[in-house]
């Protein structure tokens, strides 16, 4: 069954906001777990969340992580906000 986008968005935003104090970056698999979905299904939702700029991507070059847009040190430290 396809995931409901709005419902999924609420789940992700709630969970990530709750954790924001201690953790600002999440692996893709963490998001799939929050959605309780198969990776391929979760990916559709996550892509859309990035597109709508709810989430943003961080990359070390080799690893990618997701976080709520503007949360965490990176953005302000690098004058990218």
């Amino acid at each position, binding site marked *: 069954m396809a995931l409901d986008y709005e419902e999924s968005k609420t789940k992700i935003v709630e969970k990530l906001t709750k954790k924001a104090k201690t953790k600002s970056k999440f*692996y*893709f698999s963490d998001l799939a777990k929050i959605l309780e979905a*198969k*990776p*391929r299904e979760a990916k559709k939702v996550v892509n859309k969340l990035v597109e709508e700029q709810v989430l943003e991507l*961080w*990359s*070390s*070059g080799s690893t990618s992580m997701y976080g709520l847009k503007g949360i965490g040190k990176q953005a302000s430290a*690098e004058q990218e906000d």
Partner: protein
Amino acid sequence: MAKHETPMLDQLESGPWPSFVSDLKQEAANRAANPNNLEYQIPVDVVEDILGVLELSFKHGRTHWKHGGIVGVFGYGGGVIGRYCDQPEMFPGVAHFHTMRVNQPGAKFYKTDFLRNLCDLWDLRGSGITNMHGSTGDIIFLGTRTEQLEEIFYDLTHKYNQDLGGSGSNLRTPADCIGQARCEYACYDTQGLCYHLTQEYQDELHRPAFPYKFKFKFDGCPNCCVASIARADMSFIGTWRDNIGIDQEAVQAYIGGELNPNANDHGDRDWGAFDIQKEVIDLCPTECMWMEDGKLMIDDKECNRCMHCINVMPRALRIGQDRGLSILVGAKAPILDGAQMGSLLVPFVKAEDPYDEIKEVIENLWDWWMEEGKNRERLGELIKRQGFQKMLEVTGIKPMVQHVQEPRHNPYIFWKEDEVEGGFDRDINEFRKHHQR
């Protein structure tokens, strides 16, 4: 007069080798002189500052680059790697120094005007410093500011019909050998398959959702010019399943010295007369060649397609006619667990458009790895952790002799109950009739 004193870097120019320090100084001087009157979009002294920050790192024995970043172009999760200097006041030219990966044309096959266009774009909107080519194969643009990313991406895609490559936890830019375009050893169209899969898996290439990086590389034959067997999570290596073609007359021409071995690659020195026994037959790893009544014989069922004999005598020996490719999986460099070479998964498959059988293997592997792979675990590590047998199960491939590296290495292949006729139940009374306690 250089902007920063760089005594330690200067020392690197003193050896007999070409030096990247000399290259950087040359580019710094060129940028300062600005012979083409460019309206530089990032600081003119970016290259000076690169030299300066590197000298400082040598002095401190520590890097002055921060790790990673959130920058990218809209709609893509890869292709741009954020890099920031942690001493931006001292080195404003490299306060931002983002890398962009440009998906190289198939087989790195392009003309000088293409290259000139990319370099002009990069002189204008970036540092002018490139890396041709990165280990993944990409054309690498080293160093630009965040504001320039979308501008560069627009020009690349709209003017030069050129995409960004992969970075981060996604499918990396697929790389291939020159294949049938120039090479008579190519057993399949490497550029065809590379391009097809690049198009097919755009989403995997640009939007990261894998546990870690994933690489495809395509070699047209076991000579492995792009070293797929050592560097790719999935290596596609050309092979054949019939016989090596032999032109006995040409064999005689090699023996008689009319043809030079290895296409005269070693012709700059006199190595003495060609000795087919010593240089070909005795070096065949499977010992499947011999001379009989002046004819070269090959026991093809023993041949493991090492390519040696064909490389030595290309005019006399040909790859077979029934061609396709082998798929190997799990190669990687040593971050966790040490380096690993690819393991053979599919001994032979025909490589023909639309490549459905190949895509089925790929997608089965991805489903498994995306579900079961730990964060930052490469496919090769998952295969080791859950076992080759597990991979066979998820891909629906039957175990076969080609999967066995050597006998008795690991004899423990376990049967499942549904694979055994009659299951694991037995009639104990029937059994006791024949076996005493």
